């Protein structure tokens, strides 16, 4: 039996679709805001929709930060940040003033404004494979994912970039460093491509 996935509910974004997708791939997942449950987790999914600073405030202004740091950096359990959750893994974002979790050597930047490229980057985009990772195993060529974001992540080390996408600039659509994983797109709304990714995370 695969390990249970703990979806951290810190009040940013709806989690129903994420749960539905895990259910669909046969993984056990629970949504919780209970600190003890998070402290016992084997695997953590960090979701998030909304503003960078608003999310960091919710994580930082309480005991959640210390628990998450311990799980990610000391126990080194698999942690998967999606959408804003991926941006939180970086050192910081041009969207906000607060520092990020800083678990991966990366920054979050704003898309440059260009007349023919509307921000947010919203819609289906094709990704290109980067460094091999357990998270992107068995993804078909020309995999496409559903994106909605105004800021993008750029990692320092190319080896941490596992999927790339292009929207005026090339950016890192999915990242991994050791036990820390991130995906910018809404995998839970990306058909079989998202299912494959969730299945891979469930199998870690």
């Amino acid at each position, binding site marked *: 039996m695969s390990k249970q996935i703990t979806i951290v509910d810190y009040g940013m974004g709806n989690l129903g679709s994420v749960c539905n997708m895990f259910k669909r791939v046969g993984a056990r997942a629970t949504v919780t805001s209970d600190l003890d449950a998070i402290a016992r987790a084997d695997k953590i999914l960090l979701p998030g929709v909304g503003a960078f600073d608003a999310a960091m405030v919710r994580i930082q202004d309480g005991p959640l930060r210390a628990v998450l740091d311990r799980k990610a950096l000391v126990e080194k359990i698999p942690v998967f940040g999606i959408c804003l959750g991926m941006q939180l893994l970086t050192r910081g974002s041009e969207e906000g003033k607060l520092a990020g979790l800083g678990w991966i050597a990366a920054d979050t930047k704003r898309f440059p404004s260009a007349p023919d490229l509307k921000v*947010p*980057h919203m*819609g289906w985009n094709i990704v290109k494979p980067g460094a091999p990772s357990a998270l992107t195993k068995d993804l078909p060529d020309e995999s496409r994912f559903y994106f*909605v974001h105004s800021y993008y992540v750029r990692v320092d080390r190319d080896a941490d970039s596992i999927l790339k996408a292009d929207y005026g600039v090339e950016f890192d659509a999915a990242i991994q460093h050791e036990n820390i994983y991130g995906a910018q797109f*809404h995998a839970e709304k990306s058909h*079989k491509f998202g299912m494959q990714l969730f299945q891979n995370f469930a199998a870690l």
Partner: protein
Amino acid sequence: MLRTRVIPALLLRNESLVKTRRFGAFTYVGDPCNTVRIFNELEVDELIFLDITATRERRPPNLKVLADIANECFMPLGYGGGIRSLDQAKSVFDIGFEKVAINTYAAEDPKIIAQVAEVYGSQAVIGSIDVKADIWGRKRVYVASGRRQTGLDPVAWARQLEAMGAGEILLTSIDREGTWNGFDLDLVKSVTSAVSIPVIAQGGAGNVEHIEDVVKRGGASAVAVGSMVVFQKKGMGVLVNFPDQRDLEARLR
């Protein structure tokens, strides 16, 4: 680069799926969840559900049906129909929808667009505009499922919705809806050239050439399709289907 989205727009009459012609003449299409399962298999880009009787019956969104739909759906989802407050929008987002479309209540109290955009972001708010020609042939905005004329000019209203924070416009030609006769390209062009947010063109899609036309000549960022994805052919029975994805991609590139 982004794909041009081709979005089945499915009409709810409370709990059943229906299709209309010029906002009247209901045909029963089937059960929403079965239809969603088929569109999952067909890997469509996005789905929009519009409850066309909610406003008329002064009924809030049917959250039970919407939750069933969201549970089956592994693609982005939009909903419109009867949303008149931030709380109602919230309950639709909480179920797992990404976007809400607001039509009648935006015309009655435009603040709702800004309120929802402030909390959920502009990308989550679709300003929905239904347009019909009046007896002098002037195109005017109608609300309440096409029952009530507002006197608003569609171009000016689209600009106003954008200024209030709508992230997208769903532009529907009532005169073309359900006719299979192609889009009102003049209407679409007039709006797409006036706003900088994406415009989803709706009303008249009968084949892939129509879709190509409204994107290339009308400037639409996305296309909503109805009859052609729920009926076998014009005047024929129900058959949930979708154009060949490769053909579409080649045409819309």
